[in-house]
C-alpha cells in the first residue's frame, strides 16, 4: 500500500517534471543565450503539434517520424524568423517582446484561418505498465526519458563542442567573444533555431495528449514562463533542471490530491516565493555563489 502511493507520487512527479522541462527548455536557452524573451514560444509548440497531426493523419507517418518533421519544421521556421525579424531587435529588448508577441498572434490566427478551429486528433499510444496494484502510462514515462535526454544533449552541446563553448563565452561576455573573432550572430541564429526545434519537439510529443487547436500554446506557455523565471537565464541546464524538479515536487502531490487546478496554483505560489528570495532564479543564485567563491580565491 505504502509502496503503491510512493510509486504513484514518483510517476506524478516524473510526468510533471517532463512537462515543465519540455515546455520550458526552448524558451530558456533562447533567453539564456540571446537574452530575448520569445513570446511566440507557445505558438511554436502549437506549430509542432500541427505538423505532427498533419504528417500523422495525412502523411501516414509513424509517430517518431512525425516528431522529427515537427522538430525540423519548427527549427527551420525559427531559423528564417531570426534572419528576417528577431535579429533586428537584439538592441531593443522591449521591441523584441512586441515583435514576438505579434508573431504569436499571426501564427495562432493564421492557423485558425487555414485549418479551422480544430484539427484531427493524434491517437494516444496505449502502453500500460503495471506495478503492483497501480498501472501507469508508458508513453508519459517515455516523455520523462525524452525530457531528461534533451537536457543531456543540450549539456553535451554546451560543454563538449566548440560551438557550445563559444556559446557559453558569448553568454558571459559577448563583446569580448566578438573581439576574439567568434561569430556571435551565427551563435544567436543557431540558438534561436535550436530553441524553436525544441518547441517543435514538445508540440509533437504532447500532440497525442491534448486536443489540437490554434490556441493550445497558451496551455504550455504559462508553465514554461514560470519554469524559466524560477530557473533563471544564467545557466539554462542548471536552471531548467532545478526549477522543473523543485516545482514538480511541490505541484505533483498537490495535483494528485486536489486536482490540476490546485496544482497550478501551487506552482504559482512556489514561483512567487522563489522569486521573492532569489530574483535571478536558481541558476542566478548558483552563479552568484560560484562567483563569490571565485572572488575569494582570486585575491591577487
Amino acid at each position, binding site marked *: 500500500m505504502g509502496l503503491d502511493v510512493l510509486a504513484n507520487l514518483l510517476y506524478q512527479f516524473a510526468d510533471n517534471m517532463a512537462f515543465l522541462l519540455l515546455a520550458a527548455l526552448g524558451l530558456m536557452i533562447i533567453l539564456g543565450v540571446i537574452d530575448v524573451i520569445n513570446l511566440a514560444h507557445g505558438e511554436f509548440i502549437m506549430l509542432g503539434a500541427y505538423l505532427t497531426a498533419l504528417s500523422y493523419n495525412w502523411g501516414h507517418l509513424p509517430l517518431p517520424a512525425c516528431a522529427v518533421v515537427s522538430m525540423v519544421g519548427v527549427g527551420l521556421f525559427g531559423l528564417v524568423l531570426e534572419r528576417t525579424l528577431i535579429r533586428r531587435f537584439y538592441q531593443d529588448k522591449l521591441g523584441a517582446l512586441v515583435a514576438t508577441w505579434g508573431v504569436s498572434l499571426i501564427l495562432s490566427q493564421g492557423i485558425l484561418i487555414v485549418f479551422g478551429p480544430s484539427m484531427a486528433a493524434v491517437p494516444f499510444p496505449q502502453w500500460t505498465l503495471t506495478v503492483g496494484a497501480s498501472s501507469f502510462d508508458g508513453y508519459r514515462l517515455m516523455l520523462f526519458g525524452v525530457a531528461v535526454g534533451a537536457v543531456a544533449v543540450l549539456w553535451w552541446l554546451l560543454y563538449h563542442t*566548440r560551438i557550445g*563553448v*563559444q556559446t*557559453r*563565452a558569448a553568454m*558571459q*561576455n559577448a*563583446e*569580448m*567573444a*566578438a*573581439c*576574439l*573573432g*567568434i*561569430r*556571435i550572430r551565427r551563435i544567436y541564429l543557431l540558438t534561436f533555431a535550436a530553441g524553436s526545434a525544441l518547441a517543435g519537439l514538445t508540440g509533437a510529443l504532447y500532440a497525442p495528449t491534448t486536443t489540437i487547436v490554434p490556441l493550445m500554446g497558451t496551455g504550455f506557455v504559462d508553465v514554461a514562463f514560470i519554469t524559466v523565471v524560477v530557473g533563471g537565464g544564467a545557466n539554462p541546464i542548471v536552471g531548467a533542471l532545478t526549477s522543473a524538479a523543485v516545482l514538480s515536487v511541490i505541484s505533483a502531490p498537490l495535483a494528485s490530491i486536489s486536482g490540476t487546478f490546485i496544482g497550478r496554483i501551487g506552482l504559482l505560489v512556489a514561483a512567487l516565493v522563489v522569486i521573492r528570495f532569489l530574483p535571478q532564479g536558481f541558476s542566478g543564485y548558483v*552563479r552568484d555563489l*560560484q*562567483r563569490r*567563491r*571565485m*572572488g575569494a*580565491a*582570486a*585575491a*591577487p
Partner: protein
Amino acid sequence: MGRGVLDVSNLSAGYGSGSILQGVTLEIGAGEIVAMIGRNGVGKSTLMKAIMGVLPATSGEVAFMGQPITHLSPEQRAAMGIGYVPQGREIFPELTVEENLMMGETINRDKRGTRYDIVYAYFPVLRERRRQLAGTFSGGQQQMLAIGRALVGAPRLLLVDEPSVGIQPTIVLEIGEVLEKINAEEGLTILLVEQNTRLIARLAHRGYAMDKGRIVARLGRDQLTNQDMLVQYLAV
C-alpha cells in the same frame, strides 16, 4: 599611407555625442613594439577599442596589413589577425583555462595550426591549471591567460591595454619578459598601452604620447628609457 601592419589616420571616435579621439594618426611597422603613453582618461583605451572596432570611428581611417578595416566588425578584424588583450583582462570566468584559450582560435583565420604549445611554454602555469575555472585565477594569472588567449590564434598584431594594472611586480616582470621574447623570436608586432615606466623602458622600441585625444609627441627609444621624460607625459 604606408604599408605597415597598422595605419591609423586622422581617427576620431567616442561615446554618444562626445568625441574622445580627435584625429589620431599613427603607424606601426612589422616587428615593432610601440608604446602608447599618457595620463588616465586621455583616450588610450578608446584608441584600442577603435582599432579593434568595438567603438565605431566617427571619422578617419584604420588600415591593417594595407587593407582598410574602418568599417569592419570586431569579429572580422580579429579574423584578419588582430589579437586584443583588453584592460581588465576580460577573461571568461566560468570557462576553464583551456576553454578560454580555445576561444582565441578564431583569431587570424589564415594561420596554420594553433599555438597551444608555445603559449604553454611561455606560461607554464596555464598548462598546470588548464582544467581550473578562470574566475578562480589571481589578477596576474588572468593577465597571462588573456595574453595566452590572444596568442593561441597566432595574431599578426597584438593590442595590449595596460597589462600591469593591479598586478604584482614579479608577475609584471614575467609578462614583460614573455612579450619581449615573443617579439624577438616570432617578430610579433605589438601596440602596448602602458603607464608603468619600467615596462615601457624595457619593451618599447619607440612610442607615442597622447593627451586629450591627440598624439602630442613621437618618442624614440632613448626618450622612452629616460624616466624624467616619461614622467612628464604620465604625471597628472
